[in-house]
């Protein structure tokens, strides 16, 4: 006869089946948690931070706005140093008035404009865009600025113009990073004219409802949200129209790493960074990167018929 003995394991001590079946993930998560608690309360803290701010209907509605502190203290702006925190430190006293912008090349009237004259009468808009760096991190930034299309139209480019080039200020006395030859100074970037005339392209003069801080490219910072951030020239002093594709800074230095087009593309990897995912600043887990940074429905037609693997 079989006499049942009472279980010598209390039911409260029995691992639930669901946890048992999921044990590998459970251990993984526990390990991750332990590690996180051990070394990065900072990261968790950043994760827990709530961000506020209304976003415009510009494609970034579902994205939480990056904290202004992060967006103004983590910058790639080699004119003020190559470290992420260098620009905020070294650009502190950078003066952006008076400021002039030269307009030349294939344009009706080449001229030098005072910045306030150049922008006068153009409507200033607030637009929240995703910002994707080629280094596989991203932010969501509420820019303020004028539509690039409106600005360029005012300059009256000739019908023969096919490209537009933007040049950053060259002044090693005010931009200490230019005393080292990390890039051929001044920094230049360029767009095909139809890209520049796309309604999404913006000439930013401000962010977070205020004027641009110098470390973020004051007083004029080009914003092309479907391209990697390096396309967005900062502290612009010259706009030139031309019919041949201009040489651009990063493309000149490392053509195999930085293409002229630089459209955000999760399928084409940079030699040093996988572009399939990105770390959104302020979040812990990497998120998938979207083609054209999520603006494909608006801009993909610009590149119809182009091989985006070759033209990266």
């Amino acid at each position, binding site marked *: 006869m079989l006499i049942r003995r009472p279980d010598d394991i209390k039911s409260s001590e029995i691992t639930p089946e669901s946890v048992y079946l999921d044990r590998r993930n459970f251990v993984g998560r526990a390990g*991750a948690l332990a*590690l*996180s608690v051990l070394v*990065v309360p*900072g990261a968790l803290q*950043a994760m827990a931070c709530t961000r506020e701010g209304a976003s415009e209907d510009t494609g970034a509605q579902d994205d939480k706005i990056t904290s202004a502190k992060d967006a103004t203290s*983590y910058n790639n702006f080699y004119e003020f140093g190559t470290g992420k*925190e260098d620009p905020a430190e070294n650009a502190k006293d950078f003066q952006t008035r008076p400021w002039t912008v030269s307009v030349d090349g294939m344009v009706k009237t080449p001229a030098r404009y005072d910045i306030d004259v150049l922008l006068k009468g153009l409507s200033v808009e607030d637009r929240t865009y995703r910002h994707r760096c080629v280094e596989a991190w991203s932010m969501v930034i509420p820019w303020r600025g004028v539509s690039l299309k409106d600005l360029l139209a005012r300059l009256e480019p000739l019908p023969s113009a096919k490209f537009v080039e933007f040049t950053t200020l060259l002044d090693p006395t005010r931009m200490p990073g230019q005393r080292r030859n990390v890039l051929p100074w001044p920094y230049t970037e360029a767009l095909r004219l139809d890209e520049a005339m796309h309604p999404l392209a913006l000439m930013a003069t401000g962010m977070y409802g205020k004027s641009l801080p110098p470390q973020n490219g004051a007083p004029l910072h080009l914003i092309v949200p479907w391209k990697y951030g390096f396309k967005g020239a900062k502290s612009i002093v010259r706009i030139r129209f031309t019919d041949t594709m201009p040489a651009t800074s990063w493309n000149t230095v490392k053509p195999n790493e930085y293409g002229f087009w630089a459209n955000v593309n999760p399928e084409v990897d940079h*030699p040093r960074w*996988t572009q399939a995912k990105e770390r959104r600043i302020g979040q812990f887990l990497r998120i998938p990167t979207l083609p054209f940074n999520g603006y494909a429905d608006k801009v993909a037609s610009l590149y119809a018929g182009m091989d985006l693997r070759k033209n990266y």
Partner: protein
Amino acid sequence: MLASVEPYIKRWIRPAMWLLVITPILWMIWQAVTGQLGANPIEMLQKESGEWTLRLLAGSLAVTPLIRMTRWGWLIRQRRFLGLSTFFYALGHLCIYVGLDQFFNVSDIIEDVLKHRYITVGMLAFVLMVPLAITR
């Protein structure tokens, strides 16, 4: 020579070495706890832990030439200490990469190791250090 230096080593050199090795870790923890790692704390931790691994590695590799030059045989024990410290820094660096940066995503890690030369080199360096650490 040995007899005169030995008590001095025991009293000062070893605590100094411990201090050297433990300070960067405490500094990183302090920065993490007080939120001083900046906008991208994971990247910052990765960079700092990697750089300290390289410094310690350079230090361990410098011991043998130093012994040859100075004939301070007692330094050999410091080499072992520095070598093991380097290994634990490398392990910490790897844990930050696997657990925080990649969040245990095995397929992403494999792709990363195979595709990107600097990751390949780092992983290879770690693998090569494992037998050295085990056999001390």
